[in-house]
C-alpha cells in the first residue's frame, strides 16, 4: 500500500478531496508452502483490489462517493476468486441547526459497538456500512440523541434484514471539577425479512421434535454504558442484553431422524455481555485492566451467514494487538457464542530513555475451559536520538482447535523472545533490525525471523526479511519464507513493491480475524490522498 496528497483548490466555497488505495497481486504457485489450488494460482495468476474515495463539501453539505474494484480478488474468500466493481459507497450529510442528517452508506456505532457497529476492514473485505438514513439531534451542547434505520451492505448489494436503532449520549462535568461522566444508552432492533424467516421455518420444521425450537422475526438489543473520569483514573463500563435470536451453533449436538447425532443446529436464545475497563495514567505509569463476559452475542443479518459475514455488532478483542511477525502469529478473535476474559496492561517509563511494558491476557470459555493465555513483556531503551533498543519475551497458550476450527489439534504453547534495534546514521538515514525466535512443539514447530530495514526518510524504505521454520512439524524440510519490500513515498503518494512467501496463519484486522492460506507471489500497492 502507498499514498499521495494533492490539495485541490477550493472553488465557490467548495472543496474536493479524496484518496486511492489499490493493490495488485501476482500469484506464483508454490506447492511446498501450500500456495496452490485456488483459481488465482491455477489460471488467473493476477488479482487486484482498489478503492477510490471522493468527497466534496459545499453549501453546508458533505457529499461522498467511492468506486470499488475487485478483480480476481482473494480478499472476500481466500480460497476463491471474486470479481466485481461499482459504487461501493455514497453518502450525503447536512447539519441543519441542531439536526444532523445523513443518508446513503453510513459508518457508525452505538457505545463500543457491542450491539451495533457499521464499519470497514479492507484487509478482510469487511464492509458493514448501513445503507439507510441517520438523524442526530443536539439536545444541548452535552447531550445528543440519534436514530438510524437501514440495511447492511453486502458487497454491491444489501442484506434484506432491516436494522434500526438509536442512542442517547451525554457528558456531565462535576462543578467542583473532581469528576466527569459520559453516560449513554442505546437500543438496536433487527427484523429478518420474510425470505430468511421462511428458510428458518423450513429448516426447523425438518428437525426432530427434541431439537425443534421457535423463531422470531425481531431481535432487540439494549446497551447501557458510561465513562467515569476522576483524576488519573478512567472507568468505562458497558452492559448489553439481546433478546432471543435464531442463530446457528456449529458445536451443539443435534438428533437426527436416522437415530444418529451430529453437531450443528439452529438455536433461538437470548444473549448478554458485560465489558469494563479501568485505567490509570500518571507519573510515567499507565495501568489498564479490562474484563469481559459474553454469551450468545452473535448478532447477524441472517442466521445462515458464516465467518465474518453479516455481523451487526463488534465484540472487542481481549488480547494485545501484537505487531512483530512472530509475536502476532497466533492472534485471537472474540468468540461470539461465549467467552470470559481479563486483560492487564502495565507500562512504566521512569525516564525518557527507558520504558517497560507488560501485558497479561486470560481468556476462557463459559465452562472455564482455557482458550488463550498470553504474557507479553517489553523494555525499550533510547540513546539520545542515535539508537533505540527494544526487547522482550512473549509466552502464549493458544487453543488452535477453537480459534482455527481444527478439531483434535493440541494447544499451541509458545515462548518467543524478540529484539529490535534502530540506528539513525543522521536525520534521514536509519537502519532497523528485528530478530525473533518462537519456540513451540506444536503446529508448524519453531520459527526464526529476521528483518533488516534501511530507510532514507522521507522517500525510500528497503526491507528484507525471512521467516524460517527451524524445527518443522508439518513439512519434511525446513522451509524459508523470505520477503522483500521496497516502499517509495513522494509527497502524498506511496508505492510499494513486495516479493512475498507467507505461511498459512490467522490474519487479524481491527480485532476481527480469519484463517488465511499461504501466499506466494509479488504484490504492488499504491495509496494516495488528495
Amino acid at each position, binding site marked *: 500500500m502507498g499514498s499521495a496528497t494533492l490539495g485541490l483548490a477550493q472553488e465557490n466555497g467548495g472543496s474536493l478531496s479524496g484518496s486511492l488505495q489499490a493493490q495488485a497481486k501476482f500469484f506464483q504457485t508454490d506447492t511446498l508452502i501450500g500456495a496452490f489450488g485456488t483459481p488465482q494460482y491455477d489460471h488467473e495468476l493476477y488479482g487486484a483490489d482498489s478503492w477510490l474515495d471522493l468527497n466534496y463539501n459545499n453549501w453546508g453539505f458533505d457529499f461522498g462517493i467511492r468506486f470499488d474494484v475487485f478483480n480476481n480478488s482473494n480478499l472476500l474468500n481466500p480460497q476463491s476468486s471474486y470479481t466485481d466493481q461499482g459504487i461501493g459507497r455514497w453518502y450525503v450529510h447536512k447539519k441543519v441547526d441542531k439536526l444532523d442528517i445523513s443518508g446513503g452508506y453510513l459508518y457508525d456505532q452505538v457505545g463500543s459497538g457491542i450491539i451495533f457497529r457499521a464499519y470497514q476492514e479492507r484487509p478482510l473485505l469487511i464492509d458493514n456500512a448501513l445503507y439507510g438514513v441517520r438523524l442526530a439531534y443536539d439536545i444541548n451542547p452535552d447531550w445528543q440523541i440519534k*436514530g438510524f434505520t437501514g440495511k447492511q451492505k453486502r458487497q454491491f448489494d444489501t442484506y434484506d434484514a432491516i436494522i434500526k436503532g438509536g442512542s*442517547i449520549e451525554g457528558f456531565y462535568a462535576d462543578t467542583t471539577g473532581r469528576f466527569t461522566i459520559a453516560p449513554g444508552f442505546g437500543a438496536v432492533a433487527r427484523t429478518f425479512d420474510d425470505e430468511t424467516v421462511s428458510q428458518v421455518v423450513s*429448516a426447523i*420444521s*425438518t428437525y426432530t421434535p427434541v431439537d425443534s425450537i421457535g423463531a422470531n422475526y425481531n431481535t432487540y438489543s439494549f446497551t447501557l454504558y458510561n465513562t467515569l473520569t476522576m483524576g488519573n483514573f478512567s472507568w468505562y463500563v458497558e452492559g448489553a442484553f439481546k433478546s432471543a435470536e435464531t442463530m*446457528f451453533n456449529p458445536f451443539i449436538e443435534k438428533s437426527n431422524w436416522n437415530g444418529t447425532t451430529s453437531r*450443528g443446529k439452529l438455536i433461538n436464545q437470548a444473549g448478554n455481555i458485560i465489558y469494563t475497563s479501568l485505567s490509570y495514567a500518571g507519573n510515567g505509569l499507565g495501568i489498564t485492566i479490562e474484563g469481559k463476559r459474553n454469551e450468545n452475542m452473535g448478532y447477524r443479518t441472517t442466521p445462515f451467514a458464516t465467518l465474518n459475514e453479516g455481523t451487526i455488532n463488534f465484540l472487542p478483542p481481549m488480547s494485545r494487538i501484537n505487531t512483530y511477525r512472530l509475536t502476532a502469529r497466533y492472534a485471537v478473535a472474540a468468540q461470539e457464542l461465549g467467552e470470559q476474559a481479563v486483560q492487564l496492561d502495565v507500562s512504566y517509563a521512569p525516564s525518557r530513555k527507558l520504558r517497560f511494558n507488560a501485558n497479561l491476557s486470560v481468556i476462557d470459555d463459559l465452562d472455564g475451559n482455557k482458550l488463550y493465555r498470553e504474557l507479553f513483556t517489553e523494555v525499550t531503551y533510547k540513546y539520545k536520538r542515535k539508537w533505540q533498543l527494544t526487547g522482550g519475551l512473549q509466552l502464549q497458550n493458544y487453543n488452535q482447535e477453537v480459534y482455527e476450527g481444527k478439531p483434535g489439534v493440541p494447544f499451541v504453547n509458545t515462548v518467543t523472545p524478540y529484539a529490535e534495534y534502530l540506528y539513525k546514521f543522521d536525520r534521514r538515514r536509519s537502519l532497523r533490525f528485528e530478530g525473533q525466535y518462537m519456540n513451540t512443539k506444536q503446529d508448524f514447530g519453531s520459527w526464526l525471523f529476521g528483518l533488516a530495514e534501511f530507510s532514507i526518510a522521507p522517500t525510500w524504505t528497503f526491507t528484507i526479511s525471512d521467516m524460517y521454520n527451524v524445527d518443522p512439524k508439518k513439512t519434511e524440510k525446513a522451509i524459508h519464507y523470505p520477503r522483500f519490500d521496497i516502499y517509495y513515498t513522494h509527497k502524498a503518494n506511496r508505492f510499494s513493491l513486495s516479493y512475498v512467501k507467507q505461511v498459512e496463519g490467522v490474519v487479524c484486522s481491527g480485532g476481527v480475524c480469519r484463517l488465511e492460506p499461504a501466499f506466494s507471489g509479488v504484490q504492488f500497492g499504491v495509496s494516495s490522498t488528495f
Partner: protein
Amino acid sequence: MRLYLLIVLVFSLAACEENAPDIPPLGPQEVGERRILIEEFTGVRCPNCPDGSAEIENLVALYGDALVPISIHSSGNFAIPLPDSKYDFRTETGDQLLDFLGQPRGYPAAVVNRTLPEGEPSLQQGQAAWAGLIERAVAEEPIVAINLSIDFDEAVRELSVTARVVPSQTIDESLRLSVMLVEDHVVDPQITQDGIIDEYDHRHVFRAMLTNTEGNPLGDSFSAGKTVPFDESFSLPDAWVAANCEVVAFVHKVGENKDILQVTTAHL
C-alpha cells in the same frame, strides 16, 4: 424531557409483540415426483465435514429417495489423502465442478439443486441452510422427466447408460444433461472432530462424469412430450464395487441460472 425521549426510544423498538412464525413439525416425507440433488464438497482431511455428511444422511432419512446426495472430494488441501488412505477420492472433474459451482467460504458446504438462494451471492451454502432449501425445492412441480435405464456387463465391466429426457411443457431455454457415477459405502480413513476414524464409511462418493463437466447440451427449446435421447457407455474400473455404484442423471439450466429441473438415479 430526557427520560421521555428514552422511553419513546425503547418503546418504539420493543412495544409491539410480534406474531412469531408457525413452525409445523415435518417428520419423514412421502416421496414425490420432484427429486432434489445435493452436491456436498468434502475431503478426508476436513474435520468438520463428517458433521455435514451426517446432516445429509439425516435429510435422506427425512426425504427418502426425493433427496439425491453426492459427495465430491474437492476441497483443496482438505481432500489430499491421509497417509493411511487406500484411495484418492479426488478427481479432475470434481475440481472442475468446484470451480464451476464456486468455492465455499468454509466447510461443511453443499450446493442444493444448483439453485441460488434468494439474496445470496453463492450457490455454496453452509450446513444451517440445507434443510430449508431442500424443503422449499421439493415442493415444486417437475417440468421434465428423465427415463434412465442402465445395462451393466459384469464380465467386461462395461456400463451402458440410456437416458430419455421428456419435457412436460414447452421450455424455451437451453438445457443440459449431466450424468454422474457415484460409489456408496467406501471404507477409508477420515479426519473427524474426534480424531481419525480408520474405517469411516464414505457415502455417495463422486467417481466420474459420463457427460461434460457442465453437462451435455440438450437443445435450446423443447416441446411438451418430445423426447431428447442420451446414450453413453463407460468402463468401470476394477477398484470400484459395482454393487455400490449408482448413476445419477439430472437436467439443468446453463449460464447464470444453473437450476436443476429434475434428478433421477439408477443402481448398477
